[in-house]
């Protein structure tokens, strides 16, 4: 019987299958950051253990760091302490640390791929649920808790039940102004925020074939928002082209060997999935969320559905109350206070290009506070080198320094109580972007159109 891409990568990393228990899985690459690692290092210390393979772990500071004046000491005492603790732990254990100001610094899921650490066929983990991003390269990548971070530091392995397998196939063509973010929000709205719990997803079909690596990362990134452990896409020429020449990618002779190996990483004909979904590219429109989980998303042109169409009435009403929206409301035209472009979902160079394509030659609305936060220093540099910064500046936008920023609002970048933000991030949970903040998830195109008019705007209307 044929094997799926997921089986091939997973099975080749199993050290032991415990009877009526989890698999012991070898981990190739491990990313850590300041928030979910400190307690893991305390655990090591208590057990008197060293990091077993420090060269397989990479550290960045991103979650709670400021996005202005990064050259100055971090003002928030607790944040400063977390970053310092990470630096100290890395020094003590011989781990590469890319702290603030380092040219490789940035959001953990942006720097892994852009430096070529993320490669097809690897197992990759990080104490952050959006680790699923790296699956865009045909790697098995998923988020873990701090106890598991400790396990990986100590033993380079974790213990996990092998997930079930799901395939989501989308053939056909995407309409204009429909981005990978819309594709992901569309899928989540169809499956719900728990529809893929227990599964690992493979995305296949023409729509994903045609997508850029950045777009594939956006889609895989959002896999967790429907409950999936992770998502992956089989590597192809685009994957190799993206990786070629990057700092940590294999070089010369090794490169050819690697490409040979990678080219076998695809699902065999006849391989069996536990669940399969099929959608058509043409069905997808620009999307936006209206509630408090990413599954509560609709096409921009539609109105908020009635609670009768949802499976849990009380939670549905609670969500609309929080947003102060009503069943039947039209989304387009609603007044917005903030626009946030950034995060590991949509903070890569392609997202800034997309955003700039809409705002070029126009002015930012006076009603809008816009926070534009590149995913990494490399993204920041490209924004400048490609002349995108000039376009942003001419339109009245400012650029911040890299980090997670208002994606989880651990630093000062908090959307104020009661305000509405159109955000290119991944979670519209209550208070996610600041206590009482109201988040509407959308693509960089919708965010740009909204930033120009001050209200939710269909990018197809902007000429």
């Amino acid at each position, binding site marked *: 019987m044929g094997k799926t891409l997921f089986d091939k990568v997973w099975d080749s990393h199993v*050290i*032991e299958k*415990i009877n*009526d*228990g*989890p698999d*012991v899985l*070898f981990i190739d690459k491990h990313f850590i950051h300041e*928030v*979910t690692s*400190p*307690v893991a290092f*305390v*655990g090591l210390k208590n057990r008197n253990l060293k990091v*077993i*393979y420090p060269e397989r772990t990479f550290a960045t500071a991103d*979650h709670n760091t400021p996005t202005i004046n990064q050259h100055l000491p971090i003002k*928030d005492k*607790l944040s400063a*302490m*977390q970053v310092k*603790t990470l630096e100290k732990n890395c020094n003590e254990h011989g781990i590469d640390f890319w702290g603030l100001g380092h040219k490789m610094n940035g959001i953990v899921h942006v720097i892994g791929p852009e430096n070529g650490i993320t490669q097809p*066929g690897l197992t990759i983990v990080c*104490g*952050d*649920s959006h680790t699923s991003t790296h699956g865009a390269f045909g790697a098995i990548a998923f*988020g*873990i*808790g*701090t*106890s*598991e971070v*400790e*396990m990986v530091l*100590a*033993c*380079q*392995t*974790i*213990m996990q039940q092998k997930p079930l397998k799901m395939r989501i196939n989308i053939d056909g063509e995407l309409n204009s102004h429909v981005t990978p973010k819309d594709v992901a929000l569309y899928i989540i709205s169809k499956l719900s*925020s*728990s529809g893929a*719990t227990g599964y690992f997803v493979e995305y296949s079909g023409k729509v994903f074939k045609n997508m850029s690596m950045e777009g594939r990362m956006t889609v895989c990134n959002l896999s967790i928002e429907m*409950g999936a452990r992770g998502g992956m896409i089989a590597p192809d020429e685009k994957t190799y082209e993206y990786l070629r020449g990057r700092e940590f990618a294999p070089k010369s002779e090794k490169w050819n060997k*690697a490409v*040979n*190996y990678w080219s076998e990483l695809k699902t065999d004909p006849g391989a069996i999935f536990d669940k399969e979904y099929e959608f058509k590219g043409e069905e997808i429109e620009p999307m936006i969320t209206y509630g408090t989980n990413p599954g509560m998303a609709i096409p921009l042109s539609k109105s908020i559905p009635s609670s009768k169409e949802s499976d*849990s009435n*009380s*939670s549905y009403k*609670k969500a609309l109350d929080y947003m102060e929206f009503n069943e039947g409301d039209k989304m387009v035209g609603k007044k917005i206070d903030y626009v946030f472009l950034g995060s590991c979902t949509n903070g890569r160079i392609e997202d800034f290009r997309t955003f700039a394509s809409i705002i070029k030659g126009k002015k930012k609305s006076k009603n809008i506070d816009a926070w534009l936060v590149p995913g990494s220093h490399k993204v920041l540099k490209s924004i400048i080198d490609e002349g995108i910064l000039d376009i942003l500046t001419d339109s009245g936008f400012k650029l911040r320094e890299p980090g997670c920023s208002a994606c*989880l*609002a*651990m630093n000062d970048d908090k959307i104020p*109580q009661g305000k509405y933000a159109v955000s290119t991030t991944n*979670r519209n*949970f*209550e208070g*996610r972007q600041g*206590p009482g903040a109201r988040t509407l998830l959308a693509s960089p195109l919708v965010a740009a159109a909204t930033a120009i008019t001050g209200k939710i705007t269909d990018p197809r209307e902007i000429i």
Partner: protein
Amino acid sequence: MAYEKFNILNSTAVPLDIDNVDTDQIIPARFLKATERKGFGDNLFRDWRYNSDNTEIYSFPLNNNDYKGKILIAGKNFGCGSSREHAVWAIYDYGFRAVVSSFFADIFKNNCLNIGVLPIQISDSFLSQIFSQIDDDFDSVFEVNLQNQEFKIQNSGLKENFKISNYKKSNMSNGFDDIDYLLNKKDEISSFANKKRY
């Protein structure tokens, strides 16, 4: 030995009848700045428990003195969202040892098992029976029996089985964690680390 051993638990329970509770609600991000695992219970469900001026929101179950105990009964799809283990630390630190729901998010469930909070997944219908039992009498006692994998409503005797792998069950009842197991696998691990695919 990483945590308290778990065998039989008899306790009243706190009901939280809300679906899709994400870990940002269980513990908001701004409380994740600690470098040690201490004091997270105070901020469990922070923004549902307290107003922005830090006064208590009386309607929230954790602020209702009628409800107490070591078991949290939660709505469907509990613990979705962020992988932060801090969410389970907060639940543990607050005093809960078991969480009951009809559906858990994956990472949350793993995190629970790794630190000694027992996630008990039961059917939707049994879950609503439990909620109405507490509605009728907030002093109702429930029994968790890990060995038999049973969750029981004491006074009616109604019970349902829940799943847990043998491996995790033995970890929980002995208070062991995975690292205790993995440290014995050093040789196998190093042979994997030396394998070159390209």
